[in-house]
């Protein structure tokens, strides 16, 4: 095997190690995950029930409920990705393993990529359960839904989400106490400009301009169209996601690298307590 081949193999094994660790942890915290899932379903119901309170025709009410549900599911999905990415540092600091991970010979691309890959996989499973649980509970009719296209678009959008998540994952390196919470601020800001429960057109013009830079805008628009109308993958939603991913990932890695250097200079790359 060539040196490059051996390095790549070693890196991919390292990426697998990150995924493996998260699988172990998910198994150990399974009951907590079930409890969290129940909370997410309850939270989503509080949003989707709004459609029942609007006095419109049954068909319009069904469409509104579906659109709200898609927004809530993507909010939950994005929440998982941001949580995992931001917790990359925060969790390891809490457990005390941070120094061992950062002194291991795995590149930061694979380290963060592994964390992102698991987050997407785990997030998609949770999003699917959430979606169908609420559909069944409310009794939403989605006869035209194109689930393949919706999944595919969410997977493509995940590349950008991981890139942006890499940017937020640096926050606990800079501020061990409050950094992780700031990740959720970033998530909220991204969704508010992306039309999470409303069309982008209802926002002020300057917010509509910002919404063009958010991958969630295209994920929400495309997934709503796929679930409500059965639309397939639309290139107009795909290409902006690919371009945002192409920029967000290297920028995310560069920001993380700067944060890591800062932490190494200031002695912040250490366990809590």
């Amino acid at each position, binding site marked *: 095997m060539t040196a490059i081949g051996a390095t790549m*193999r070693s*890196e991919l094994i390292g990426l697998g*190690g990150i995924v493996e*660790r998260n699988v172990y*942890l998910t198994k*150990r915290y399974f009951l907590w995950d079930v409890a969290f899932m129940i909370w997410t379903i309850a939270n989503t119901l509080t949003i989707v029930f709004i459609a029942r309170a609007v006095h419109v025709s049954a068909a319009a009410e069904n469409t509104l409920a579906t659109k709200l549900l898609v927004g809530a599911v993507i909010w939950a999905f994005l929440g998982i990705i941001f949580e995992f990415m931001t917790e990359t540092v925060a969790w390891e600091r809490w*457990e005390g393993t941070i120094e*061992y991970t*950062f002194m291991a010979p795995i590149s930061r691309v694979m380290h963060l990529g592994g964390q992102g890959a698991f987050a997407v996989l785990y997030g998609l499973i949770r999003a699917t359960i959430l979606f169908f649980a609420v559909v069944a509970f409310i009794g939403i009719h989605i006869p035209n839904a194109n689930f393949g296209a919706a999944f595919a678009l969410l997977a493509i959008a995940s590349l950008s989400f991981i890139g942006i998540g890499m940017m937020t994952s640096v926050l606990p390196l800079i501020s061990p106490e409050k950094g992780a919470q700031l990740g959720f601020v970033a998530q909220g800001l991204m969704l508010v400009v992306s039309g999470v429960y409303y069309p982008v057109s209802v926002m002020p013009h300057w917010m509509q301009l910002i919404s063009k830079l958010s991958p969630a805008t295209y994920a929400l628009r495309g997934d709503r169209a796929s679930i409500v109308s059965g639309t397939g993958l639309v290139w107009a939603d795909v290409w902006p996601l690919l371009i945002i991913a192409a920029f967000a990932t290297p920028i995310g890695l560069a920001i993380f690298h700067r944060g890591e250097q800062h932490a*190494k200079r200031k002695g912040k790359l250490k366990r809590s307590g």
Partner: protein
Amino acid sequence: MSTLAAPTSSSTSVRGDVPAVEVRNLTKVFRRRDRKAGRFARRRLPALQNVSFTIERGECVAILGQNGSGKSTLVRLLSTLLLEDGGEARVFGHDVFSEARTIRRLVNRVSVEASFFKKMSAQENLSYAARFYGMPPSVTRTAIPAILEKVGFPPDRRTESMQNLSRGMQQKVALARALLTSPVLLLLDEPTTGLDPRSKLEVQEFIRDVRRTHDATILLCTHDMAEAEALADRIGLLDRGELLFLEPVDDVRRRYGVQTLEQAFFAATGREFEEEHADDELREVYG
């Protein structure tokens, strides 16, 4: 020699014509709040000041020092977890700060805190950690039970959560984690602090065994003078960031005309080893 698998690229990174560790004028300064001087005032606290030493391949060197003397800072610098403020450090000829990826394949460490995912078992913790060093499941399937057996970890407790294990057991798993990747430089930062006497002796015996069976160079940082004397070829004294000496224990005794290392510390610093000042506490960045 070790029967465990070595990381694929480490062998090519270990040069035989250079010392295992070369440190020249290594300096690290932290800035800490100084409330007495004002609300936003900061004070420079040198954790390491122009530290220089060399460790030959296969040697075991102990660095003694009080809390806040700079021992942990030195270990973290050599582990690529800190950036220097001056000087240089090389491991087998590789610059620690500009060739961090290469250094990481050569070095592993055991610190005072065992540091594991506490809900996960010893086997799971070792398994994922080994992947970071490029060890696939086909290798760890046999290597993990072998190394755990070697450190005296009971086979029937491999799948038990780390949180259920005693400190001594956890520290054995920490030693196993460090040795699993066959490091050529092993950094031990107070590996027996807080252990009961029996666990302490077991860990010390294991360190001796590592010296006998592995091609590893060991840097042991401790404040346990008896441990340093029992395990190391040479002993150094780090005091408030300055390395006062690094030589065989008999030379230390001769130099100061004393019988014990405690007396040597007093002769070198004018203070008792247990005596600490407020500054030492402030200096203790890594407690």
